[in-house]
């Protein structure tokens, strides 16, 4: 058990996997410069800087993956993926299927996103839902350094393209990481806190917001379970449905925009498959349908807040929950600014 930041945990995972499997290599803009220790350990063939060209970085990863390598590419910040969509979605996500199974794409695409640094909407845009919606891809977005390491190792060993989103707000927050090179399988959610009245479902930074909210709700006598999805695709439907059926009340929280986000999927899933168990509507607390502003106070206001979760939780779990909630929902739900 050691204390590492998320970035350090990812570096450890990369080093361990590159050590284990000589087909693993990493490239991207500044990868060889910023991950000097990897360069020194594995040499310039396997740790490469690239020109500024996200399109061909993604395409090259797909071409290399299909022919026997296991590339990890760092595309830096999620909005830059807009230059890499063809390689990821049209090639890596589809050519396995379109070729009748002739090719596999064991590759990992790493990108940061989320509030915390005030970098603005062209560096911070939570796009994970795009890739959940696209076929042939897997998507993870961890909330702890331990998960960063375990999920990165699993992503590298997976034979499919995996999008690995790192929440900026967590990048330098230290946490305990098991030394044993443990792997966290893709597609497994984690219950971060047991509860009986209400389930808070989230991923990445806002898992911690949910834990704070659960603490506050406990003070009000509401027992909230907190489920950390960890993987967004495959989604751990069993864990989601089990908790929803247990508590009968669900709030989904994420920083990404509300419309067609992961929260919409979770809410739809729960409402479709756990309908009989629901005591109240599934509520979404998300970032607004807006680009992320740079100004610090605005950026903070953009991110789902503890008190919004608490008040929604009280509406849901309180006696006259449903009515109060529908009224609130009429007013546009808990989306900031909405």
């Amino acid at each position: 058990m050691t204390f590492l930041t998320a970035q350090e945990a990812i570096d450890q995972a990369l080093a361990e996997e590159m050590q284990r499997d000589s087909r693993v290599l990493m490239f991207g803009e500044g990868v060889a410069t910023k991950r000097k220790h990897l360069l020194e350990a594995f040499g310039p063939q396997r740790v490469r800087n690239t020109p500024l060209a996200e399109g061909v970085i993604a395409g090259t990863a797909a071409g290399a993956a299909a022919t026997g390598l296991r590339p990890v590419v760092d595309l830096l910040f999620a909005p830059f993926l807009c230059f890499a969509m063809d390689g990821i979605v049209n090639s890596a996500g589809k050519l396995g299927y379109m070729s009748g199974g002739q090719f596999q794409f064991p590759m990992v695409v790493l990108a940061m996103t989320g509030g915390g640094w005030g970098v603005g909407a062209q560096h911070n845009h939570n796009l994970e839902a795009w890739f959940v919606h696209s076929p042939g891809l897997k998507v993870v977005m961890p909330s702890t350094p331990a998960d960063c390491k375990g999920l990165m190792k699993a992503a590298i060993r997976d034979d499919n393209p995996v999008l690995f989103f790192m929440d900026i707000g967590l990048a330098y927050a230290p946490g305990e990481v098991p030394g044993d090179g443990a792997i966290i399988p893709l597609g497994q959610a984690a219950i971060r806190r047991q509860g009986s009245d209400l389930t808070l479902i989230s991923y990445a930074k806002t898992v911690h917001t949910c834990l704070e909210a659960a603490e506050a709700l406990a003070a009000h006598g509401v027992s909230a379970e907190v489920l950390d999805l960890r993987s967004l695709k495959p989604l751990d439907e069993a864990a989601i449905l089990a908790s929803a059926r247990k508590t009968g009340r669900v709030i989904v929280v994420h920083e990404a925009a509300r419309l067609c986000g992961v929260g919409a999927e979770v809410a739809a899933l729960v409402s479709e498959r756990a309908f009989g168990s629901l005591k109240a509507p599934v509520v979404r607390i998300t970032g607004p349908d807006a680009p992320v502003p740079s100004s610090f106070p605005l950026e903070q206001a953009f991110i789902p807040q503890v008190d919004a979760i608490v008040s929604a939780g009280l509406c849901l779990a309180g006696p006259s929950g449903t009515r109060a909630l529908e009224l609130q929902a009429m007013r546009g739900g808990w989306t900031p600014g909405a």
Partner: protein
Amino acid sequence: MPFQPHRPSRLDLLAAMVRIRAYEERIVAFHAQGPFPNVCTSVGQEAAAVGVVSALGPEDQILTNHRSAGHLLARGADPGRLLAEVMGRATGYCKGRSGTLHVSARELGVLLTSTIVGGELSLAPGVALTRTMLGGEGIVVCFFGDGAACEGIFHESLNLASVWNLPILYVCENNQWQAFVHRTETMVGDPIAAWAASYGMESRVVDGNDVEAVFDAACHAAGQVRATRRPYLLEATTYRQRGHMEPHDQSYVDPAEIEAWLAKDPISRLEARLLEGGELSLQGLQAIRSEAQAVMDEAAAFALASPFPDPAELTAHVYA
């Protein structure tokens, strides 16, 4: 020691081109009979396909695009399985998932065919990177069109291949058209081979309708890539004799342009050369043609007799 291509006889080159033409004409015939999947034929571009592919060895790998039948057949693809794929049959190279626009045949070293214009350019460096890192003699040949050269990914791909010293033979089939837009509407000056200079890359333009010239240029180019493990850009000047796709439509094309290029048809040219030189008799030519027709009869019969995929397998192969 690096691969040395053996020189095919002129008769073999002719036969290979005639077979491709016969295949494409069979596609056209199917369209004439009624609804049939839209296909981008390579009629008029047979010399580029045969000339380049004949210069390759078994270890070499090919990436191609939506207009790939010539490349696949020149590489030895079974016309039956190719037609079956076009018709969406389970016996096709991609089990009917691809259809005509993205046929890959890994067993032939034809990889990752993409119909996204520029897709082949984006994928080629990765395939070549694997070659470089896992060893092996082979080179990667990337066929693309003059239109693809306008995509940003062209710039990114050639630049990366040069910076990383990747063994890629880029082959641009400049057929003067980009779907419904003439090449001269999309670029100025003297592309496309000349663009290679920006990447410190060797390049050459060859008469893409002269199969022997293409073969010689391809041997030289591939030899350079093998020797230097650096990329090379070969531009084959040719012409898309039919509309962008079937059903045929060239209403937007200057008839004089078509006429001028039909006079340079790669098959007629070689036939004439061989007949004049006495290397081929009219009977011999007839034999080559009817042999190709026979092959296509068999292919068509195979494809038509092939079953469609089972809808129960709709979601197979989505994940590894």
